[in-house]
């Protein structure tokens, strides 16, 4: 059950909230328990046609020829849909916000770039008739060399996967082949570190596997428009993408959705709507395009696999003085949303820790795998897995408690992040303290007293150590070194070794007087806004 710890930051918050903390019934719950919630496939139409897709059996191949003449005459077949039928057969999802080049066809034209890539569609009176017709289509391929590993894909001579990005990396701002973060001088700091940890992490692709597979039904309306019932998680995004691919004004499309049988990020790619609309347009009949479970698992885009290298420079007293990250996102054959995942990853480095020297390179790499997409915190999740494994290893390497190691290095309000933004609204330390309390995990007194407030925390690390935190190289003096490194445990304090904790609470951990309540505020929202960061200002 939820527990609200109102004692934490109590002086910084109004608690006269009407809804927060109170259970509220979901408005869709009655429909769910009575089986009446309207999922896209719960709409019935007379003379519904079914679209099934022929998919590439090769990870990379040139299509030499396609013979669909027998299939076109098969029982129940109403229409074959070929690449040439797609009005705008090249798109990239984030093109709607001018991010990235069009790189993905709805139906492959001359080359297939991943196993399962759509090549041709059959519209028939039943799914079975469509599948039987698909089995009659003859395609001949010339297999091409394929690449499945992100680092292999970046080597000279690797097969080029995606013609919009011939070097196998997404291009940022039209010229950069990766996202880069530089703060201080990590290499110089490694030379001063007591321990250097160089580790490799690999996260596999993960399929969302929603219980309702991706699908949509496009229905010609009486006024020339199309009504589209869809499982999409991103209704207007899918509408605009479908309008672009079908070269029609978006006001010709009426999307109905909102009831989604599990998404988790796997239903934002607009994988079915453009072709179901096209099929409805070409046949004049309602058309359903529904992924089978096999299609969902094999060809529905997964969370991308990620390979992450992390090198930490750690001092024996627990401070992390440098962190170097090199991460490769496997985007699969096309961009979809991985370009954005990489930006999120770079923004999350080095994790919620104040580290004075940070160096990161993050790549969005094309391979001949299934294109990857959004999934629950994508870009951050795998990085956090790697970072937190690294934190455990770092703590072990110097014989420190892993939770205390995190609390020691955690952001405090006002600390300068590697992105040259001030940390604000920090609460990791309090979370760690409550977690330790719940788990009966012993924390030393000084760590129980630390706080995320500005400078809030124990100056328990020897003052002499401060100087090692200063970025080491001349280059670093440009920005970070001249910026005061606001690290809680750098505060001048009586020097004492970390494992013999001083009994006296550090001066900075004293609670500041509660700020006056803002005039006219009736609830906490403005003060807590993460956008404006006004919590403790």
């Amino acid at each position: 059950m939820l527990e609200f710890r109102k004692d934490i930051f109590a002086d910084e918050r109004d608690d006269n909230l009407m809804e927060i903390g109170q259970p509220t019934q979901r408005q869709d719950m009655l429909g769910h328990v009575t089986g009446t919630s309207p999922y896209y496939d719960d709409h019935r139409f007379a003379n519904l046609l079914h679209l099934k897709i022929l998919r590439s059996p090769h990870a990379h191949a040139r299509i030499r020829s396609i013979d669909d003449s027998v299939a076109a005459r098969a029982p129940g077949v109403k229409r074959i849909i070929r690449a040439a039928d797609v009005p705008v057969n090249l798109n990239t999802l984030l093109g709607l916000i001018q991010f990235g080049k069009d790189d993905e066809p709805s139906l492959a034209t001359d080359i297939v770039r991943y196993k399962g890539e759509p090549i041709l569609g059959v519209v028939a009176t039943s799914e079975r008739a469509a599948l039987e017709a698909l089995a009659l289509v003859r395609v001949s391929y010339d297999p091409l060399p394929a690449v499945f590993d992100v680092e292999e894909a970046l080597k000279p001579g690797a097969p080029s996967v995606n013609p919009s990005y011939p070097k196998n990396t997404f291009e940022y701002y039209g010229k950069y082949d990766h996202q880069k973060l530089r703060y201080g001088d990590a290499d110089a700091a490694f030379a001063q570190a007591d321990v250097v940890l160089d580790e490799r992490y690999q996260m596999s692709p993960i399929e969302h596997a929603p219980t309702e597979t991706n699908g949509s039904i496009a229905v010609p309306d009486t006024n020339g428009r199309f009504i589209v019932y869809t499982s999409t998680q991103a209704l207007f995004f899918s509408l605009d993408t479908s309008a672009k691919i079908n070269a029609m004004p978006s006001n010709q499309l009426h999307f109905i959705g909102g009831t989604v049988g599990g998404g988790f990020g796997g239903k934002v790619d607009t994988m079915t709507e453009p072709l179901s609309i096209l099929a409805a347009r070409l046949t004049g009949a309602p058309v359903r395009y529904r992924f089978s479970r096999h299609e969902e698992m094999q060809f529905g885009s997964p969370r991308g696999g990620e390979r992450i290298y992390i090198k930490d420079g750690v001092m024996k007293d627990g401070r992390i003085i440098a962190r170097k990250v090199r991460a490769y996102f496997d985007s699969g054959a096309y961009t979809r949303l991985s370009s954005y995942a990489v930006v999120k990853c770079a923004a999350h480095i080095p994790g919620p820790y104040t580290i004075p020297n940070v160096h990161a390179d993050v790549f969005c790499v094309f391979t001949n795998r299934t294109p990857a997409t959004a999934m629950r915190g994508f870009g951050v999740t795998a990085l956090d897995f790697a970072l937190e494994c690294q934190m455990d290893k770092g703590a072990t390497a110097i014989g420190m408690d892993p939770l205390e190691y995190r609390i020691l290095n955690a952001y405090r309000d006002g600390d300068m992040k590697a992105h040259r933004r001030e940390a604000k609204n920090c609460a990791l330390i309090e979370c760690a303290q409550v977690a330790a309390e719940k788990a009966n995990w012993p924390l030393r007194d000084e760590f129980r007293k630390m706080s995320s407030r500005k400078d809030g925390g124990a100056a328990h690390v020897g003052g002499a150590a401060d100087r090692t935190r200063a970025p080491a190289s001349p280059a670093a003096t440009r920005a970070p070194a001249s910026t005061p490194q606001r690290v809680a445990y750098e505060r001048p304090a009586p020097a004492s070794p970390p494992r013999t904790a001083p009994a006296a609470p550090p001066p900075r951990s004293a609670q500041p007087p509660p700020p006056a309540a803002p005039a006219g505020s009736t609830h906490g929202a403005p003060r807590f806004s993460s956008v404006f960061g006004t919590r403790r200002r």
Partner: protein
Amino acid sequence: MKTPIQFRLNGEDVATFADGGANLLDVLREGVGDLSVKGGCWQGTCGTCTVLIEGVPRLSCVTLAETCTGRSIETTAGLRHGADLHPLQKAFMERFAAQCGYCTPGMLMAAKALLDRNPNPSREDVVEAIGGNICRCTGYEPIINAVLDAARTDSRRHT
């Protein structure tokens, strides 16, 4: 070739014509119009399409419709009595035992089969009973608690 199929659905006689080899899931949804039954995998692995045939939970997507002729089938559409929800439905609502809701009809039917058979199940009995039903929003704990609640609040009504 269409085959006539006749069975009892939630206490009412129904009849329809189905393609030879049609599965019960398609016949219920498309032939008879009971949309409370959902398809998740169409290959007998996820439990989403669970219905009760003669009181026993079955996967309708891999049940040949013709084998159901003359038999009694229960689905979520028949759970409520008029405006009154079944104790399981009430408990699912109160316990927040549904997120996306897509696995819920199958979960409810698997749970109903259990309570009909065993009005006072243990936690382990509930886990076993819904063991064939996948919830991808991973809300198993609230579902288990809801089934136990339903058993506690009313062990007579679920007949």
